[in-house]
């Protein structure tokens, strides 16, 4: 009993505790600058590369819309998981979140995107929906029509011998339009994202 009281008093009359008891103030409720919040716009010009949409792991969290002042990314807060990949992926620094953008310059990180298109020949029935829907193809061959046949070899996707074929993979922008338009899920686009830290190169 006595020991308990002694312990209690000892605990109560600690200088640290007394100072806290009389002088402590609740810290102001503010968001620290390093907190990775929802991405915000920095005001720089968006060039509609869509890398933010390609890197985003959450479906439907970001899209790029056309406004009066040009293209602009838009964040849907209900879907965003605040991973900050869109901030890293953007080549122009349109978005910012926490210290990510600052860290990218500080660490000198460079990101590279590449894409792979896999066509499953067993599932592909050569309907040509992918080739017709592809926005890259539309620019190269405006006259491409039903069936996915064309006379030029400069296209990204083309139907040959009843199967869809990839001709120029380097032209792919990873929009996945072909994947969305495939009725048999034969075509799949993989986005390969690679980040390298280069300390020896000065920005």
């Amino acid at each position, binding site marked *: 009993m006595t020991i308990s009281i002694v312990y209690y008093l000892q605990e109560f009359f600690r200088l640290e505790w007394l100072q806290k008891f009389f002088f402590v103030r609740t810290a102001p409720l503010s968001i*620290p600058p390093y907190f990775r919040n929802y991405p915000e716009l920095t005001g720089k010009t968006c060039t509609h590369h869509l890398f933010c949409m390609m890197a985003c792991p959450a479906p439907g969290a970001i899209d790029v819309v056309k406004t009066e002042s040009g293209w602009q990314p838009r964040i849907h807060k209900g879907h965003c998981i*605040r991973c*900050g990949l869109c901030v890293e992926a953007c080549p122009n620094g349109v978005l910012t979140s*926490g210290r990510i953008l600052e860290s990218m310059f500080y*660490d000198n990180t460079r990101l590279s995107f590449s894409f792979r298109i896999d066509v499953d020949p067993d599932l592909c029935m050569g309907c040509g929906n992918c080739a017709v829907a592809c926005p890259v193809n539309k620019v190269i061959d405006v006259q491409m029509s039903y069936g996915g046949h064309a006379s030029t070899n400069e296209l990204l996707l083309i139907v040959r011998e009843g199967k869809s074929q990839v001709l120029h993979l380097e032209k792919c922008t990873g929009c996945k339009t072909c994947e969305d338009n495939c009725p048999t899920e034969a075509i799949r686009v993989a986005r390969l994202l690679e980040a390298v830290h*280069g300390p020896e190169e000065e920005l």
Partner: protein
Amino acid sequence: MKRTVDVNIPLGPIHPCFKEPARLKCEAKGERIVGAEVELGYMKKGIERIMKGRPWQEVMFLAERVCGICSVIHNMVFIEAMEKISGITVPERAAFLRVVVNELDRMQSHLLANFSYCYTIEHETLGMYLLDVRERVLDELERITGSRVMAAYMIPGGVRFDLREEDEGHLRANLAAIEGSITRYMHMFEGGPLIALRSKGIGVLTREAAQEAYAVGPTARASGIPEIDRRLRHPTYEKLGFEPVSRYEGDNFARIMVRFQELLQSISLVRGSLDLMNGGPIRGGGIPGAGEIAYSGEAPRGELSYFLKTDDAGRVLEVSIQTPSIMNIEACCHYMLKGVASLADVSSTFVSADPCIACTER
């Protein structure tokens, strides 16, 4: 054979002492518990099914969301498994940074576990002290990664953000303060006579029983099986000269004390990796490829294994996760709870094994 059971007492699924829903059915004889069964399945998320067929960029974030308390280790084990599959090497500085963040995450998880034990034995003061320390640890995590939980810090080929010099100074200063308070609270716990009455000799898991039940993590280490620690097989921890802690009593007291000792050990591991860290790149790059692997790491609660199968574009074809808590829940129900003297000790014994139901059911 018919068993003479006075009454079958259910605990949960909603119980003030449990952090997550689980149902314990205790067979009681008088007030003594003669056996227990656990009923799980209240928070199944089906996260492995969601992971299938998705690219690694998405699975990386899904893996973190398996568990809210130990999210960093899920990220780390998944990413290291991907790196093993595709032969990506990690820069040295990034490997040490991974250890720093992982140990900070282990600290906050252990502090929460010890808080819930103190709360369960009605020592709320000590529990709240521990939560206060946990806030400091979470602040450090936020300072490094930008987020308190779901840090998404590790990616194939390195980590996402570098540790800056001013942050390192802040981390070291905060670690010193955390170490001081943890030592003080550890002595409080060790020397408290009423804590000893509620903890010593209760819920004993002998070494043989722990081996039979395949107990993992701090639960097994409190029963004298230190070699269970997967960190012994991790190359970065080998560089740091890691030695697991262990105790031999196997009761509630030993399990909590093992966690307290591991907190101090985590602090020294963080310091060790800060000392050994040199400048250099933190992102080596590398593209995940095809392969199949079973890889495990040490979560705060024990061994966490991922079985992964990917195709050459880095999509996850098959995944299955084995989390540590299911082993400890088994050990708790079938070995620790047998012969516990009263119903009040059931909840404290269950909490001392630190069950994480979200991990268990995924």
